[in-house]
């Protein structure tokens, strides 16, 4: 954008302020789901919150955007970490449900005084937008309507010169695993032997892995519970493992029992050094229980088809001491074909175990 346009923008912004309207609203009017901030007219930086989606499925990330606009006549600075997608601190956001603050579960970061490199300069009228994923930082498991606003973080003075935003309301589907997860001893679900990390796992990756492991335990426990029933040719079983035989059913049940046992009793090591974009994860089957996560893993949904939790089930099933599965077929389409053509391979195929556990879309 040219300097002249910026000046024009700044002039318009000033006019808008004078008229008692919000800069952010003026700049983005026409977008849905946005409310204006009037609460801190004196702040140099006006903030506003937006969401491109009004409703989020339980398996989806809940991403909102916050715009920071310099409404003053001089340049101001904001900390770079506000725009860092990998930063773990989201405590400057406030999320409420029915007027009650929702538990914040991520980190509170006390930061050293920023150097010039840590700051972003906003010229008068300039606006920058940051995206924040909420489900990893706030307990949204209950589902419902959540009000989200930017409030600044008390422990970070740098955020306080940004004014509080108005709030927007977003809908989130209740997490179907919520009851199960809260019933699970969290430490235990995270591997009784503990979790450790090698190879550059960032804080947000670690947090994401703990969630994935908890969900994977729920998946494994759900599969064991399902397969504890009398063997029968259910849609869910036959879709992924083919024609029913009691022996096959019991083999698969043993696999999930072993997988669940890993999550509850074994030390697990995660390595985040792989960046291959077309790979979710890999393991050395002869080296339990170390799982290497790659590029595609981080963009996978938390639960559901080809999710983070499902990928952990897939990888865990590869370990020779667990189930010793192979990769005969990748993807739902190929896994379904395999079930039809070769049940003996299907019950030893890692993706088939993943899809049965994910059960998405749900089959009885």
């Amino acid at each position, binding site marked *: 954008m040219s300097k002249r346009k910026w000046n024009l923008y700044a002039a318009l912004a000033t006019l808008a302020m004078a008229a008692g309207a919000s800069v952010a609203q003026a700049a983005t009017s026409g977008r849905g789901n946005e409310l204006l901030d009037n609460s801190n007219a004196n702040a140099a930086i006006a903030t506003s919150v937006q969401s491109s989606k009004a409703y989020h499925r339980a398996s989806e990330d809940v991403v909102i955007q916050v715009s920071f606009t310099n409404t003053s006549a001089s340049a101001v600075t904001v900390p770079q970490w506000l725009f860092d997608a990998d930063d773990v601190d989201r405590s400057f956001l406030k999320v409420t449900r029915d007027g009650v603050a929702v538990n914040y579960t991520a980190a509170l970061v006390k930061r050293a005084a920023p150097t010039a490199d840590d700051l972003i300069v906003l010229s008068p009228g300039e606006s920058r937008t940051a995206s924040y994923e909420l489900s990893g930082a706030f307990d949204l498991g209950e589902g419902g309507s959540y009000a989200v606003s930017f409030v600044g973080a008390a422990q970070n003075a740098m955020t306080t010169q940004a004014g509080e935003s108005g709030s927007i309301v977003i809908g989130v589907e209740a997490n179907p695993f919520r009851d199960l997860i809260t019933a699970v001893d969290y430490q235990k679900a995270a591997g009784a032997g503990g979790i450790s990390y090698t190879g550059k796992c960032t804080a947000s990756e670690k947090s994401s892995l703990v969630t994935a492991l908890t969900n994977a335990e729920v998946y494994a426990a759900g599969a064991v519970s399902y397969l504890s029933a009398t063997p029968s040719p259910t849609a869910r079983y036959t879709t992924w493992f083919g024609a029913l035989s009691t022996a096959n059913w019991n083999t698969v049940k043993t696999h999930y029992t072993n997988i669940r046992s890993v999550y509850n009793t074994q030390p697990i090591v995660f390595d985040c050094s792989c960046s291959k974009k077309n790979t979710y994860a*890999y*393991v050395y*089957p*002869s080296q339990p229980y170390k799982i290497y996560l790659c590029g595609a893993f981080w963009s996978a949904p938390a639960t559901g088809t080809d999710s983070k939790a499902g990928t952990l089930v897939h990888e865990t099933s590869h370990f020779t001491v667990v189930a010793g599965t*192979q990769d005969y*077929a*990748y993807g739902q*389409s190929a896994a379904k074909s395999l079930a039809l053509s070769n049940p003996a391979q299907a019950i030893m195929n*890692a993706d088939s175990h993943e899809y049965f556990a994910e059960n998405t879309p749900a089959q009885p």
Partner: protein
Amino acid sequence: MNRIRSAQSLSLFALGVFLTSMGATVPVEAAAPVELLSCRLSMPTTLGRKEPAVALLALRNSGKQPIAILKRNTPLEGWLADSLVVTRDDQPVPYIGAMAKRMPPSAEEYLLLKTGARRRTRVMLQKGYDVSLPGRYQVHWKGELMDVQLGKGPVNPALAQPQTVACNALTFTRTP
């Protein structure tokens, strides 16, 4: 001469079957492109105590069409699957390589063999299987190909044609 003619007619037949199969959902079993592939696995029959075990995997397209082979989970791409059967003194030798969950393949994952073309790949056995101990080893590639297509490799996973190519078993002895 006879042999060439039969190879030609086989290739035409395979092409016909292949084209027919594009519209159908049933995978083709007979006269698939894989039958136009010849496979040979070779290596020295005796290895010294510390000599690396390197096999040569040769694939040849004896058909009249280029063949695209998905290299995924075969010895053509390194060790991301337990694709060989290895025994030492008739006891199974476990796989020590990696296994990966992957997204649908891209075009770069295909090996394109023109008509009459041969590709030889060095297969570093010791990276996938512990073949360090002395003994008599047998190595057999299962020959499982996740997708084989005539022409340039397509990337629609729904149209993938899994095939099994027949390949010889080899034996070698590692001396103490």
